[in-house]
C-alpha cells in the first residue's frame, strides 16, 4: 500500500496497452486519457511505456507488443481490452513469440465490463483507469510458469453399451486403439434395442443396430465387459486406474455356444422389467433378446429356484456343453486407461407420478417404452398392437405428448424426442390397425432433417391433432358412448372447448430423465451433474462432449435428451477427442495449480478434505500434505483455507490478488483513498 517500491520488483518493466476496439471501447472510455494516465501515474509502479491502439488483437497490435518487448526489454505486459476469455491466449502467444514467458502477460477487461455496460463516460473512464491499475499491480507478482506435460495411456474406457457407447468404442477401436466397453446389462444395445422403428426413416431399429453390436462384439480391439459395473476410478487424465466388477453370469463363456436350451428349459418365468418394460416375460436364466451381444446368458440369482431354494438345476442338466457354473463368483478387474467416455443413457419418467393419467390403475394406459415393445415384432405380442388383455385391437388410440416434460411440477425441460416418437406411433397404429388416432400436443417439435416432412406425412394420413394439455384420463363414463372406454379430458385450445374423447388405448409419451444413479456415477468419475442430474459439459455450445475433468468425456443422452443421430455424433466426437490425446501421446495442462510449501505445512490436514478431486495427499511419515499437480484443477480452495498460508496458487496467488485489490482502490498512487478521486484519477 505504501509508495515504496518492493526492491525485488524495482526492475519490473511493464508495458501497458489500451485497446480502442474500434469504437467499442473508445466510444465510451477516453482511451488516450487512460493511456496518458497510466504512463504518468503508474510510472513509479513499473510502467515504462503505455500505448493505445485501435485493435490490439490484430496482427499489427500484436506486433506492437512483440516489438516493445524486444526493444524495451519489457518484463511484464498488461493489455486493457476485451474479456480474457476471448483473447488471453492471443496476447500470451504474442509474448511467447517475443520470448517473454506467456504467463507474465495479463489481460484486463474494459470492454465487456466497462465500455459495454456503462453510459456515463467519465465514470467509465475512471473505472477503466482503476481496472488497469489493478492489472498493473497484479502483474508485478506474476511468475513465469511452464505448462505441465502428462503422458497419455493409449487405452480407453467406454462406460455404457448403448448406441452412443458402441459408436465411440468402434471409432476408437477402428483407429487401432484398445477400448474397454463396460455395460451394466447382460447385453449391449441399450434403449435402441427395445425400439421397433426409428424416426423419420422408419428403419427397423434392430436392423441398423445389430450390425454395430456385432462389430463391437467381434472387434479385436474392443474388450467387451457386459453384466459389469465400474466400482472405482482413481488417477488423472492420461493415467486412470479403473476397477470394474464383473458380476457372476454363472455361465462359463468359453464353453457356452449360445444355443439357448437353458432358457427353454428353465421353469421359472419372471416379468422382464428392463428389456420388455414390464410387458413381457423372461426366464431366470436368460439373454435379454435373441440378438444379444455377447450371446451368453446370465442367471438372475434373486429369481433363480436353485439359488433361492436349492432345487431345479434344469439349465445345468440340459446344457450340452456343461457351461452352467453355479459357483461362479463376481470378479474384480483393474484396468489402466488414458481417457474415459461416459455414455450411460437415460431413464424414462415414471408416469405413476401423474396419478390422473391413470397409468398403473387403468389397464389400457401404456408408456412409450411399453408401446415400443408392443409394436416390436419380437415383442410380447409379436408386433400386434393390442390392449392389455392381449387380444383386442384398439379402434381409437390417444397419444399424449409431454408426459412429465415441460411441466414445472415434474421436469421443466423438453425431452426432445417425444413429438417425433408420438408421430411415429401414430403412423404405425394407422398402418397396422387402421384405428383412429388422436395426438394431444402442446407444440410440435420436429426440427431436424426430414422431421417436419414426417409430421406432414402423418397429418396427411389422417391422424387427428388436438392442441392442449390432457387434464385427465379416466374410465368414469359420464356421457353416452363413454361406457367401457377410457376418456381423455382435454382442452382443445385451437377450438376453445373442453373435450371428452373416448378412446380404447392411451399411450403416454413419457419424458426422458437422467439415470436414477447419475449423481453417484458423476461422483465416481469426478464430474458434475446439473440440477436435473444430467452430466454437465464443459461448454454447452462450444464443447458439448468434454467435462471440466480432463480426460473424462460424456456423450449421448446422459448429457441431456437427444435423438439417435445426435447421440451418434456425440459418440464420434468424444472418440475423436480421445484419439487426439492418444495421438499426441501427451497432454499439456494449464499451470494454474496449487502447491504446498513443505517447510510451512504443519500437517493439520484441513486442506485434504476440501479437494473435490482428491488431489491432496498426506505423507504420514513427514506429517505434511502434498498437492498432486496433475490432479489439481486449480480452484484455489485449499489456498484460501490453509491457516498457515503454506499453500500457494500459481496464477492466482495471494500476492497477486491482494495487489489487484490495492490497484483497484488506487492505493498504489501515493496512498490515495477512493474519496480523493480527483487527485487519483487526474
Amino acid at each position, binding site marked *: *500500500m505504501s509508495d515504496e517500491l518492493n526492491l525485488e520488483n524495482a526492475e519490473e518493466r511493464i508495458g501497458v496497452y489500451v485497446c480502442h476496439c474500434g469504437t467499442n471501447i473508445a466510444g465510451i472510455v477516453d482511451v488516450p486519457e487512460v493511456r496518458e494516465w497510466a504512463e504518468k501515474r503508474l510510472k513509479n509502479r513499473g510502467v515504462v511505456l503505455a500505448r493505445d491502439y485501435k485493435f490490439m488483437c490484430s496482427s499489427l497490435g500484436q506486433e506492437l507488443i512483440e516489438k516493445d518487448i524486444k526493444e524495451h526489454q519489457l518484463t511484464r505486459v498488461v493489455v486493457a481490452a476485451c*474479456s480474457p*476469455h476471448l483473447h488471453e491466449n492471443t496476447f500470451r502467444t504474442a509474448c511467447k513469440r517475443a520470448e517473454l514467458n506467456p504467463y507474465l502477460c495479463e489481460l484486463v*477487461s474494459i*470492454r*465487456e*465490463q466497462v465500455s*459495454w*455496460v*456503462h*453510459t*456515463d463516460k467519465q*465514470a*467509465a473512464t*475512471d*473505472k477503466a483507469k*482503476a*481496472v488497469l491499475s*489493478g492489472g498493473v499491480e497484479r502483474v508485478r507478482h506474476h511468475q513465469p510458469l511452464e505448462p505441465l506435460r502428462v503422458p497419455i495411456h493409449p487405452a480407453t474406457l467406454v462406460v455404457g453399451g448403448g448406441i452412443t457407447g458402441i459408436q465411440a468404442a468402434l471409432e476408437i477401436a477402428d483407429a487401432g486403439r484398445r477400448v474397454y466397453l463396460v455395460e451394466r446389462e447382460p447385453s449391449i444395445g441399450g434403449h435402441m434395442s427395445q425400439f421397433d422403428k426409428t424416426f423419420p426413416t422408419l428403419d427397423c431399429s434392430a436392423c441398423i443396430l445389430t450390425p454395430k453390436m456385432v462389430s463391437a462384439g467381434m472387434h479385436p480391439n474392443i474388450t467387451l465387459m457386459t453384466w459389469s459395473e465400474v466400482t472405482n476410478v482413481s488417477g488423472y487424465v492420461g493415467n486412470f486406474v479403473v476397477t470394474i466388477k464383473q458380476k457372476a453370469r454363472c455361465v462359463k463363456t468359453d464353453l457356452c455356444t449360445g444355443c439357448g436350451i437353458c432358457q427353454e428349459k428353465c421353469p421359472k418365468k419372471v416379468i422382464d422389467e428392463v428389456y420388455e418394460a414390464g410387458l413381457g416375460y423372461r426366464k431366470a436364466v436368460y439373454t435379454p433378446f435373441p440378438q444379444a451381444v455377447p450371446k451368453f446368458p446370465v442367471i438372475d440369482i434373486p429369481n433363480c429356484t436353485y439359488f433361492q431354494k436349492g432345487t431345479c438345476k434344469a439349465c445345468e442338466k440340459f446344457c450340452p456343453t456343461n457351461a452352467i457354473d453355479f459357483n461362479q463368483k463376481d470378479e474384480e478387474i483393474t484396468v489402466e486407461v488414458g481417457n474415459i467416455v461416459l455414455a450411460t443413457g437415460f431413464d424414462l419418467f415414471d408416469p405413476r407420478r401423474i396419478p390422473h393419467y391413470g397409468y398403473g390403475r387403468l389397464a389400457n394406459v401404456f408408456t412409450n417404452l411399453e408401446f415400443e415393445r408392443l409394436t416390436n415384432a419380437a415383442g410380447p405380442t409379436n408386433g400386434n398392437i393390442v390392449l392389455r388383455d392381449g387380444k383386442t385391437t384398439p379402434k381409437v388410440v390417444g397419444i399424449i405428448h409431454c408426459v412429465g416434460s415441460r411441466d414445472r411440477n415434474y421436469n421443466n425441460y423438453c425431452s426432445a424426442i417425444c413429438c417425433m416418437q408420438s408421430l411415429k406411433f401414430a403412423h404405425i397404429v394407422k398402418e397396422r390397425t387402421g384405428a383412429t388416432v388422436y395426438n394431444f400436443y402442446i407444440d410440435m417439435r420436429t426440427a431436424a432433417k426430414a422431421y417436419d416432412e414426417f409430421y406432414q406425412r402423418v397429418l396427411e394420413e389422417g391422424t387427428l391433432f388436438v392442441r392442449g394439455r390432457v387434464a385427465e384420463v379416466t374410465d368414469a363414463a359420464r356421457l353416452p358412448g363413454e361406457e367401457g372406454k377410457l376418456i381423455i379430458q382435454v382442452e382443445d385450445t385451437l377450438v376453445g372447448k373442453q373435450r371428452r374423447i373416448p378412446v380404447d388405448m392411451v399411450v403416454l409419451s413419457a419424458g426422458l430423465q437422467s439415470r436414477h444413479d447419475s449423481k453417484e456415477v458423476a461422483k465416481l468419475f*469426478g*464430474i*458434475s451433474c*446439473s*440440477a436435473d442430474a444430467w452430466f*454437465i459439459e464443459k461448454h454447452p455450445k462450444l464443447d458439448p462432449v468434454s467435462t*471440466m475433468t480432463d480426460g473424462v468425456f460424456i456423450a449421448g443422452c446422459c448429457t441431456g435428451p437427444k435423438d439417435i443421430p445426435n447421440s451418434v455424433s456425440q459418440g464420434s466426437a468424444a472418440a475423436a477427442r480421445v484419439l487426439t490425446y492418444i495421438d499426441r501421446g501427451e497432454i499439456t495442462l494449464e499451470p*494454474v495449480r496449487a502447491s504446498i*510449501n513443505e*517447510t*510451512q505445512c504443519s500437517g493439520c490436514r484441513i486442506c485434504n478434505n*476440501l479437494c*473435490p*478431486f482428491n488431489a491432496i495427499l498426506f505423507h504420514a511419515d513427514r506429517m505434511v500434505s502434498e498437492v498432486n499437480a496433475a490432479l489439481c*484443477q*486449480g*480452484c*484455489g*480452495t485449499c*489456498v*484460501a*483455507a490453509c491457516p*498457515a*498460508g*503454506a499453500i500457494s*496458487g500459481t*496464477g*492466482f496467488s*495471494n*500476492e497477486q*490478488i*491482494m495487489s*489487484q*485489490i*490495492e490497484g*483497484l*482502490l488506487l*492505493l498504489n498512487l501515493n496512498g490515495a*483513498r*477512493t*474519496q480523493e478521486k480527483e487527485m487519483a484519477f487526474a
Partner: protein
Amino acid sequence: MTDQFEPVIIGFTCNWCSYRAADLAGTARVKYAPNVRLIRMMCSGRLDPTFVMKAISGGADGVLITGCHPGECHYIEQNYKALRRFILLKRTLTQMGIEPGRIKLVWASAAEGVRLATEITKMVEEVRALGPLNWDHHNGHQPLAISHQPEEVAA
C-alpha cells in the same frame, strides 16, 4: 459527476460462472452502475476472507462475492466452501461494526448476465444508502495494515 456519494464496491467473480455472466451482461449491452470493480478468481472457493478485509480496509464501501450456483460449481462443490466462509465472515464483520448490507453473496450462472447486472445495481443503491464506510477514518488515521506479508517460518 454528481455530488451524490458514489460507493466503490469490489466484486470477486469466479472464472467459470459469474465472470462469464459479467461478460454476458457486456455482450448483451445490459447497463448497470459503474461502481463495482471486478476481480477474477478461478473459483469462489478461492476467496480468502482476508481479501474482503483488505478491500474494506483499503477503502471499499462494499464487497460483492459471486460464484456458481450450488450444485453447478466447475470444481464440483467448492462454492459450498465459499458459502461457509461467507457466513462466518459476515458475522465477524458485523461484530466489527460493518453493516451486513455491505457484504453480499450472489450466485450467478454463466447464462445470468442480466440477473448479475440487476444484482449489482441493487447492491450499489443499497450501499449508497448506507453511506461511505470510511473504515480508516473510523478506526484511526492509519488504515488497518492487513497486508499479506511474505511468510517467514521460525526455525
